[in-house]
């Protein structure tokens, strides 16, 4: 199974990289941009017989290692 994990800064925490990029886009004339936020995407392939168990395992991986639950939220998607 293939999983796609999108990780981003928790809402409300500052995202300096996003803010700076937002400002740079404005300076280039893209004034219709109202916000920019950065995230990371991780693709995982897992040999799994039981899709539900694999999804639960990915969830655990996110909490334990892939995301930092202190400052990050994440979404897990199945891509194949």
């Amino acid at each position: 199974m293939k999983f796609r994990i999108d990780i981003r800064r928790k809402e409300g925490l500052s995202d300096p990289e996003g803010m700076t990029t937002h400002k740079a886009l404005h300076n280039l004339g893209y004034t219709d941009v109202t916000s920019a936020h950065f995230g990371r995407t991780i693709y995982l392939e897992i040999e799994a017989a039981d899709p539900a168990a694999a999804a639960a395992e990915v969830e655990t991986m996110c909490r334990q290692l892939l995301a930092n639950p202190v400052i990050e939220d994440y979404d897990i998607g199945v891509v194949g």
Partner: protein
Amino acid sequence: MTESPPDTAEPAHRQLGMTDDEYESVIAILGREPRPAELAMYSVMWSEHCSYKSSRTHLGRLPSSAPWVVVGPGENAGVVDLGDGWLAALRIESHNHPSFVEPYQGAATGVGGILRDIFTMGARPIAVWDPLRFGPLDEAHNRYLFGGVVSGIAGYGNAVGVPTLGGEVEFADRYAANPLVNVMALGLLRREQLVLSAASGVGNIAVLLGAATGRDGIGGASILASASFDEESGSKRPSVQVGDPFEEKRLIEACLELYDRSLVVGIQDLGAAGISCATSECAANGGMGMDVDLDSVPVREDGMTAGEILMSESQERMLAIVEPAAVADVVAVAEKWEVNASVIGTVTEGGSLRVRQQGELVAELPAASLSDDAPKYDRPLARPGYLDELWAAGLTAAPPGDVAEVLPALLDDPALGDRSWIYQQYDHQLFLNTIIEPGHDGSLLRIKGTDKALAVSTDGNGQRCYLDPRRGASRLVMESALNVAVTGTMPYAVVDNLNFGNPEKPEIMWQFSETIDGMAEACDQLMIPVIGGNVSFYNESAGVDIYPSPVVGMLGFADPMPSSPPRLDRARAAMEIWLVGPRDETDFAASAYSRVIHGRLDGRPAATNPDVGRGVIAAAAGLAHHLPVLHDISSGGIAVALAEIAITSEIGLSIGDVGWSELWSEGPHRFLALCEPGSMPTLEVPTVRIGTMGGTTLDFGRHGAVELSTATGVWRAAIPRRMA
């Protein structure tokens, strides 16, 4: 967070960490029940972290005056006079609790905070040091914390453009659930640039500079730093702050330009307790009041309450007090550096701090009451019962052994091995001031355009302080002073960071009180003032307190600087090796030898000797102008100090008449000096030749030998092999 207390039985003030007595004091000051925003302000400003309520009783015993002190404790940083119009600003702080919760951001925002303390004074920050304590690296979580903290310091410090010149590190179980992340910064300024945080002048304008205010770090000062860790630490996570070194870099440049052009009357950084603290301190320090309009504060999130805006610890913000005519210029400078500037308040007569939100008065209180009326506790003290037994145990000699076994074991210890894994991640050369880089006893910085130089050393030894806090603290001051002396400077001023456990336990308060006395005693003996400090209590997890861990930051000063200061890598074949200072073979309490080889922590550390201490420090500072290598003897004793010289200089050595115990003992007031044959000057302190440089072996005669290549390999791998 909401302003109305959640539906529980616990009253609002207790949820904010305030005692019933403290709440009664607030009512007495106001003559009424506090509004929600007012309660929020008092709860943060009266927290342990902001008010020093458990420590103030004792801190006054530290000597803080000397003719060269320009600004003593109490301001954002201590300032000393270096002559010819040059001043140096020094400050130390802890970021222990935030770094445990989120190591990268905790350490990063610690660096950001200390830099603001320095440039608040008008100084350009020129260097940072980081004393660190973690649990043993055998455990994955300790490696995660250690790695995260080091990359947080590097990530922020390098990007903000201030060099990090090292610090020191120790590892012990007691720090596993409560690591220590201390950070010290040095700034340099011309006398006319000195700025203080007083808001004088009715009608002057308060301008908020820098980042927008968000909910991050709300209650951080009171909640994170004023309570112990327990299983609920997870629920405290929203208090984590995120640092933005790019914002801080622009803020530094903008503020320094404001000072250059004399556009500000006073300035204060926003750290713990955010706008509450900055507005009240500016007003109170100037004997004034202030009207503040929260609608003018740029916020990152909608719907923030008055209490949240007042308490937010969002990073990279400053509050400048500006004359009305200068506001336009201030805004223009801010725009140049792409820093946000908002007029948020006006200085008023009468000492009252009034805060409005959407036209409504949300707080009105005497500005000075937030700091001056803060509670002050004289907590009970009790000498810990375990001390007698520990003192009676202790090694007084090293059991027979072989250098070939003992020395590699010590060099493999991560607290004794090569620390370049840490400091090579830090930019330690920026500004072209760094003459002695990390990896030596003290850092040495030149002041360009002058012959002057500043040396800095940070030192701590929690285990020694655990066995005897008074002697431990006194020895820290002496060791730190010797560390700056071997770079050719004389000790000039001290800052201290006092990391302790739960002050509500009498044994912890006793450790604290003894530490103050030991530190005061040594500073008096060396005639050096304590110009600032920080207290971090509640370093406790699941009922276990950390070792009492005072950290000393010593500033040394030389004018002129040695033309060719001693370095560990300047040893060459045939140079003579001399031991300067008293002979010693019995001081094994909290020694590296006891800990690493025998797994013990007991005994009573040797006391300092002020006359010997002063003599040895003066001898070192003098010799540094002539000799190629000087090296303080500390953890691991003479043997480890010799090995560090040999490894760094890539040359062997042979040692003559030194006893087995003397190789590992850690008595105070000693250093190694190397000189060309026959060139050792006569000194007024005990001096004895103990060996010669040369060959490819560390040869300790009858005690055994280690190949230089073996020692080098073990020493270099001590940290990398554990972090791999």
